[in-house]
């Protein structure tokens, strides 16, 4: 395999690639979230008529996926590389395939396939149609045409491309244990993150104070609703609170204190917040199309 990019080179290559395609290169959002889709640059910007092309790395937290650093590829904290293109260009699949070439996956040597996989996020009230992209039988990317976010129809439709960076790097570097990944020439992934996985797994499953978390959830929900009420709604800060509520819920899930029936109710509460934020966003200058910013 040509080059064998280090983990950080992989990220830099994708950044350069998508920058060259006209994407804004944003930085990760400073809030804990389960996936890059929660980044307001995706959730909110997917709505409304304004064109939007952005790419960014987003640390993704999945508290329940913690394995105390012992599983070869499961992590409670990992990186997604997310590209959001609105409206979806007609050649978006070709652009994506070009990006694979850029990171050393030559389609002439590999078997690249688009296998049906529709995406749905009950917490965001979002859904789309698309594929998981397979490279030699391995899922390396999620590719989605958004149809709905926050219960609102997307028009124009945007394309979301989500690369699982660790998985992709493991493939490119021919590595079977995530902690063995070369982060750069000196550091292994494990040197950077193994202790984090151990400590956070213990936090997620054992130590996180559930009373505090329940309170966090309630507070965030209350603050979110307050920010959206009245004449002068503030959808961006409100949406931050929605993300916080979602993460508190994920931690509570990991702590095993939410029953199956309660689970649906909590998801419904987060969705209600997300929907309200999205609706408020559409009434703002950036959410709606106002020529003076064009």
């Amino acid at each position, binding site marked *: 395999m040509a080059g064998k990019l280090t983990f950080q080179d992989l990220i830099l290559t994708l950044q350069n690639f998508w920058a060259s395609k006209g994407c804004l290169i944003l930085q990760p959002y400073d809030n804990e979230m389960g996936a890059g889709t929660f980044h307001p640059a995706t959730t909110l910007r997917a709505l409304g008529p304004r064109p939007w092309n952005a790419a960014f790395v987003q640390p993704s937290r999945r508290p329940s996926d913690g394995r105390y650093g012992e599983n070869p590829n499961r992590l409670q904290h990992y990186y997604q590389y997310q590209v959001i293109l609105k409206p979806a260009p007609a050649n978006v699949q070709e652009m994506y395939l070009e990006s694979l070439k850029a990171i050393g996956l030559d389609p002439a040597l590999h078997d690249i396939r688009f296998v049906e996989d529709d995406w749905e996020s009950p917490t965001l009230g979002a859904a789309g149609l698309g594929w998981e992209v397979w490279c030699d039988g391995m899922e390396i990317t999620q590719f989605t045409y958004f149809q709905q976010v926050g219960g609102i129809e997307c028009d124009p*439709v945007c394309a979301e491309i989500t690369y699982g960076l660790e998985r992709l790097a493991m493939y490119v570097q021919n590595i079977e244990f995530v902690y063995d990944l070369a982060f750069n020439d000196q550091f292994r992934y494990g040197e950077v993150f193994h202790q984090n996985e151990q400590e956070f797994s213990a936090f997620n499953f054992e130590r996180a104070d559930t009373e505090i978390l329940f309170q966090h959830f309630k507070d965030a929900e209350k603050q979110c609703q307050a920010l959206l009420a009245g004449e002068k709604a503030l959808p961006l800060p409100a949406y931050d609170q929605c993300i916080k509520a979602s993460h508190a819920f994920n931690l509570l899930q990991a702590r095993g204190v939410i029953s199956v029936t309660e689970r649906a109710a909590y998801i419904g509460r987060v969705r209600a917040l997300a929907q309200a934020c999205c609706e408020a966003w559409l009434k703002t200058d950036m959410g709606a199309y106002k020529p003076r910013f064009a």
Partner: protein
Amino acid sequence: MPDLLLELFSEEIPARMQAGAARDLERLVTGALTDRGFLFEGIKAVAGPRRLTLAVTGLPAKQGDVREELKGPRTDAPQAALDGFLKKTGLTRDQLKVEKTAKGDVYMALIERAGRETPQVLAEILPELLPKLPWPKSMRWRPSDPVRWVRPLHSIIATFDGEVVPFSFAGIQSGNTTMGHRFLSKGPLTVRRFDDYEAALKKAHVQLDAEERKAVIAEGVKTAAFVHQLEMIPDEGLLNEVAGLAEWPVILVGTIENQFMDVPAEILQTSMRTHQKYFSLRDLNTGKMANRFALVANMIAEDGGKEIIAGNERVLRARLFDAKFFWDEDRKTKLADRVDALKGIVFHAKLGTQFERVERIAKLAGEVAGKIGADPKKSERAARLAKADLTTGVVGEFPELQGVMGRYYALHDKEDAEIADAIRDHYKPVGPSDAVPAGKIAMAVALADKLDALTGFFAAGEKPTGSGDPFALRRAALGVIRIVVENKLCLPLAVSDDLLVFFAERLKVALKEKGVRHDLIDAIFALGRENDLVRLVARVEALQAFLKTEDGTNLLAGYKRAANILKAEEKQDAKTYTSEVQDGLLAVPAEKNLYTALAKAKAGISPALDAEDFSAAMRQMASLRGPVDAFFDDVKVNDENPKLRENRLNLLASLRAALHQVADFSRVEG
């Protein structure tokens, strides 16, 4: 005659939707063409990962002349209605005829249109029917355009007799170019008709027809496996799926690492199938699962597939590593020690946990075992362990391996082999083509499992409805029926009335497929809610055989006549005739004969039924045919003498009662 070629080229169409889309397109085009008076020689649609293609052959260059009569409004309808009709038909008032109908005088329009040029008509109908293609799930992708397709559509070929049929759909202007394989072909291909289109695509590494792709895959796997003295483990579902994932299937063979080969074959196979879509291979001679797999790529790689195989092997290693981990972990806890954990799994909100269910099944399995000659203790044990594998890692990962894994773990725990088999087989039969369990213990547990579900859900008010059967109760009932009937088990169903009726309904469906008349099942079932299925079936079969004989047909006619007379007279007299026939009042020889014959037959039918010799019971009935016929020939039932009349009605009632011992003939049709 000229041909139509239509190709809809899009981004990757889900494999599961391709065949249906081809069928629907064929149906829609056929409908639209015939509606417009076109006759054609042939039509065929094919589908693949990126395109849906349709060819119509022998389509005339010109539409046939159309002549149709349209019914308009009544002559006394408001002017607006008439104006509308004139506008619609493009005629004037004096071109209309008036016709008298039951609803009054109405205007009729005779429309005669000379047939138009076919391309003109096609350009009109194609863009109209494309939005009607019913994708199971479709999407929007064009700004401010509600048009939907399964994935973004990129180009359309529409040619008739080699020339483009111009129209536009979803912002795309139809033309005569397409693209070949995503990676193995460059640049657009220009085509004229289906023949050169198909050839050009083949050159561009696109195999259009799913059936051909399937054949290529099946043959390719066979050849590749044969090199290693192996063969494919048949898997039609997987074959269909992978044929929808490659435009140019290329078969490659990879190796499973030896460290995984002591993992049960079912786990390897399921993991390879569900996660990776690989075909499992087995030894040609021994049938043993081999340490190789066949994968279907969509690529002729420059290195002959080395990287692709290596990549797939690596992915598989990670998958099997997980599976092996579960398998090793699972065996550290005995199945028997897992039963308690079933308390944490809810079976159904109204029916409690899996633990409670297992307790019920165990008790029931013990009882059933006693009746069908299985060991009750072992059956109870098997039932208690039957669901324990639901708590294992492997079944958590692959739910379809429930039962199969239970057997492995039971054997590992040194449980009795029959118990282990029963754990695996108690879900059987899982479908109409699946066999019923073979062992007695497995039968006892399978019956208990299904009966518990049926009684439980019926009691909880969760009966299947016309539209839904979320708990697969029909399948469960049919399973019970098949196990009992195919093994000729003597197992009266001690269940509620409504459940027994449900069983009878299922039995009708099951027997109907074997050519048994449903009304005969009703006729037997009506007698007393027969709850012994084997006996019920035997009686129905004997009855059906009897009714096929001449005696049977005539006796049935006689019965119907008697029953009709009784019905009419009983209604008129407002009483039912059930009294004893009085010997002394029998005036005519024919009624005396019937009386004697009836007494004899009755005496014969009861013991035959008791002995469950249903053919003998039928023979006894057959003996009544002659006397019944003679009775109706010679005897007038409604005699002027009320005493004679009453006695004769009692005689007919006695005939009815005798026959009802065997079947309720009033429910027999014909």
